[in-house]
């Protein structure tokens, strides 16, 4: 990103909150409807000690669910992507399962495991599996046969081909899916906390809104946004380091 673009996008974010703040004052909007960003920030600071356990809980369920989801997703993706037949056979089922709204499975998890941490983790798992499976499988299945031929003329085994061509080739797809999956994992755990939790940001926001404590509800939203952005940035940075080759810069290439 160029410096001017970076400046413009920062200005846009600052401007967004400024317009929000000023609009609330200008139109005399009550804090019960839409609190001002400054009020939300104040609430965040005042109630911080009480908010920490909820934040930790949500981060914990999200990360555990995300890690399990990615692990399972990679294995399934490798199996499906390793052969053209498996890919074609399994894809319709996969699309079907992934199009189920994941909110709908929360009541089932609550039925099986009771309210609390387990359904939140499981919802995060289910919601983050699919992007990983689809991307890893697609990355493997679209490997250029010419690149595999290079290895096959060297009498490489299927495992050699997988580790030297298939998996490195699928890495950009995998990391693209991680960025999607980590934000989705948050959606999963917060939904479960809202529906059937006794802790976590989702649960806290539900209770705050029931008490008409709107600034606190919005404070929860801010925490979620901050955690989501943080994790996204971490995975984007790792992606850049590991798969820099896929984002080739034209100006470095020679004629």
């Amino acid at each position, binding site marked *: 990103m160029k410096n001017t673009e970076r400046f413009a996008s920062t200005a846009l974010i600052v401007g967004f909150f400024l317009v929000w703040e000023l609009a609330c004052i200008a139109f005399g909007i009550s804090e019960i409807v839409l609190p001002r960003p400054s009020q939300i920030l104040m609430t965040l600071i005042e109630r911080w000690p009480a908010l920490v356990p909820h934040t930790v809980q949500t981060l914990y369920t999200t990360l555990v669910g995300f890690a399990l989801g990615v692990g399972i997703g990679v294995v399934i993706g490798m199996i499906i992507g390793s052969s053209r037949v498996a890919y074609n056979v399994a894809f319709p089922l996969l699309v079907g399962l992934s199009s189920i709204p994941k909110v709908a499975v929360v009541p089932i998890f609550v039925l099986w495991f009771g309210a609390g941490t387990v359904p939140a983790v499981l919802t995060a798992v289910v919601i983050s599996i699919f992007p990983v499976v689809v991307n890893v499988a697609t990355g493997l299945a679209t490997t250029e046969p*010419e690149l595999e031929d290079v*290895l096959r*003329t*060297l009498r490489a085994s299927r495992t050699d081909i997988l580790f030297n061509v298939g998996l490195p*080739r699928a*890495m950009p797809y995998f990391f693209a899916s991680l960025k999607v999956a980590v934000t989705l994992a948050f959606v999963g755990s917060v939904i479960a906390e809202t529906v059937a939790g006794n802790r976590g940001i989702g649960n806290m926001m539900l209770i705050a809104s029931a008490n008409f404590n709107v600034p606190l509800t919005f404070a929860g939203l801010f925490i979620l946004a901050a955690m989501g952005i943080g994790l996204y940035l971490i995975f984007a940075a790792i992606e850049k380091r590991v798969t820099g080759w896929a984002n*080739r810069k034209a100006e470095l290439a020679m004629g």
Partner: protein
Amino acid sequence: MTMAAERTAIPSPPGAIAPTESLSRPLIQIEDVSLTYGRGEREVQALSRTSLDVPNGDFVALVGPSGCGKSTILKIVAQLLSPSEGHVFVVGREIGAVAIRIGMAFQNPTLLPWLSIRDNVMLPLKISQPFRRDWRRKKNGEYRDRAEALLAKVGLSGFAGHYPWQLSGGMQQRASLCRALVHEPTLLLLDEPFGALDQFTREELWDVLQALWMEQKPTVLLVTHDLRESAYLANRIVVMSARPGRIIVDERVDYARPRSIETTFRPDFVELNHRLRSLIFEARAAGPGAVPAGAAA
């Protein structure tokens, strides 16, 4: 015999060819090989009962119109395809039963984009025996030096750490030649390796390949549709007819090496090209492939 003596620098892999065997048998024997793609209505016969012997140390160019099955022969020898009928023997034994080291370069450089040029060139040492067993120990020493020495020979000494996309097409193809030769293969298979390059780069790379071949002396099967290229590089030119491919000419080329661009202006070189061209043209017009040749285009 002298060739065999020169090539003892590398320990032979288990199941490698005994020197006596290599003298009595051609390295590659292709016998009555046919290959059919597809089924029923869509059936396409790429090769029809083709036979070809390639003695050890020979440099054979396979020339013919596109779609004549010359690349198919190469892929069968590389075991990327299995023939529908017929047999391929390597030093007298069915292909697959004998482990010979093969190096292959394709029309596209096919370098792995996530590896540096150096690591791309070292790939055969990582995968194929006997180098593989010492990979961990030698990858930062001997193997690395070997890859860099080879890169220097093709004029890429400063580019070992670059990534493929940072290099031009001609430079990538040089690196691809290095990768095909780094493990000193017994058999070098080249599938139109210079087909996508401009004339000047192509002629430069002919000399690069010739120099590398004169040094290592592998047996070479070169597929090309460029007659000048085949006459410049090969010891023997095999011309194939249009689909289904049959061999119509098998001719030796005896110009002294190293050949240079000057060789291509000699009257007998021009005459040879002329004669081969008219033979291909006749085969196209009169042969069984007369219609498919047009249809395949």
